[in-house]
């Protein structure tokens, strides 16, 4: 992490781009990427908190209502890195928090 990255990730709010599966976009009534504001530094948890705050219809669809855990068939990627099983307080990489790349929520391929 460079000094500049660190500064970006600890000051103010950042604007995150998030890509979601079609069905979550439909539920949130958005098309394409969504952009949400989140307080720096942004973690996996706070990014999803910000997404749910902006789109309450998504509450419970990405993380389970009762445990707060990621649903088994949703994967989370940032800058090509699979953060699905990373601790939820893992910081998102600068390339995502700077808005250069989106955080990606991907539905597992499971047939049906």
């Amino acid at each position, binding site marked *: 992490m460079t000094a500049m990255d660190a500064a970006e990730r600890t000051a103010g709010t950042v604007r995150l781009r998030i890509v979601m599966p079609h069905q979550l976009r439909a539920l949130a009534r958005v098309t394409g990427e969504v952009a949400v504001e989140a307080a720096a530094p942004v973690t996996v948890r706070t990014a999803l908190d910000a997404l749910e705050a902006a789109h309450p219809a998504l509450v419970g669809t990405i993380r389970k209502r009762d445990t707060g855990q990621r649903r088994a068939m949703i994967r989370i990627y940032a800058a090509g890195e699979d953060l699905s099983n990373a601790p939820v307080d893992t910081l998102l990489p600068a390339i995502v928090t700077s808005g250069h790349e989106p955080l990606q929520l991907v539905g*597992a391929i499971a047939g049906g």
Partner: protein
Amino acid sequence: MSAVRVLVGTRKGAFILTAEGRRESWDVAGPLFGGWEIYHVNGSPADPDRLYASQSNGWFGQVIQRSDDGGASWEPVGNDFAYEGEPGTHLYYDGSSRPWKFTRVWNLAPAADDPDTVYAGVQDAALFRTTDGGHTWHELAGVRGHDSAARWAPGAGGLCLHTILTNPQDPARMLVAISSAGVLSTTDAGASWALATKGLRSDFLPEPEAEIGHCVHKLASHPSRPDVVFMQKHWDVMRSDDGGGSWREISGNLPSDFGFAVDVHAHEPDTVYVVPITSDELHYPPDGRLRVYRSRAGGDDWEPLTEGLPQTDCYVNVLRDAMAVDRMDPCGVYVGTTGGQVYVSPDAGDHWTPIVRDLPAVLSVEVQTLP
């Protein structure tokens, strides 16, 4: 009464079928919530424009949708179905004990007198209620708190509370059915519950007449006579004349008394409909013929209804919530199949015609009769 609105839940979305009173020319709207499993769509008896839909899938869990304009537009409402207190455990298929775990809403039963009050039957078996139009849901924990609950075990579809039979004459009385625990009744608006399984016999149980373990598939009653309840069980069609206090078999001359759906004619409380299915291993109609059976005698004596239904090479199923009646005169009867057909009979079952033939597998059918 001049129109009907048929609310269809399928494996891949919801559809709304509408027709004028003759029920000849149909408009098909949908899919709504495409790609999601829609276990149930139901309308409020107090306000037919108020609809609720249970939307779920394995990726994203449970969503409840609400419409205030008869299905033209929808809004997601509350999906927090949290069990009261420590959930405890129930038996699993292998005899082990597992914690209660919410999976989905099987059935939505809007109250007769208030569009904002809705009961929800869920898996793992519990009863919830909203009084604010679906925004918040609270468990009526007396069901799951019954002394026998730790010994309940799931049926093939899961440990689901799939039927909520409200009593239009006395809102404090209610029956719920759970696969494969049985039936419970309340007379105090859900504060306390008692088993209502006397007379049920299930030969797959070590004790066939045990209090619990009966795989009840569906209950139905006529609004004018709520103490008479009809049941399609895993095997056996049953009848109670005392609000579930005791049951007797009325399978009579049915070709198979296995099946899922049961319903009652809108104007004739002793006219009952079932759809016989071959067996628990063969979930399709006997002899490849889709036959709805009607009894005009409250059971025992059944006649096949075949006119317009496929009588060769038909191997679809009719699931527990996939039969409904309208309140027109003559009464219309509706059946949805796992092959995606929704059939209507505008003359109480004498003649049938498909409204649609190629929907995703139909999970549920409800009908609203509109002024």
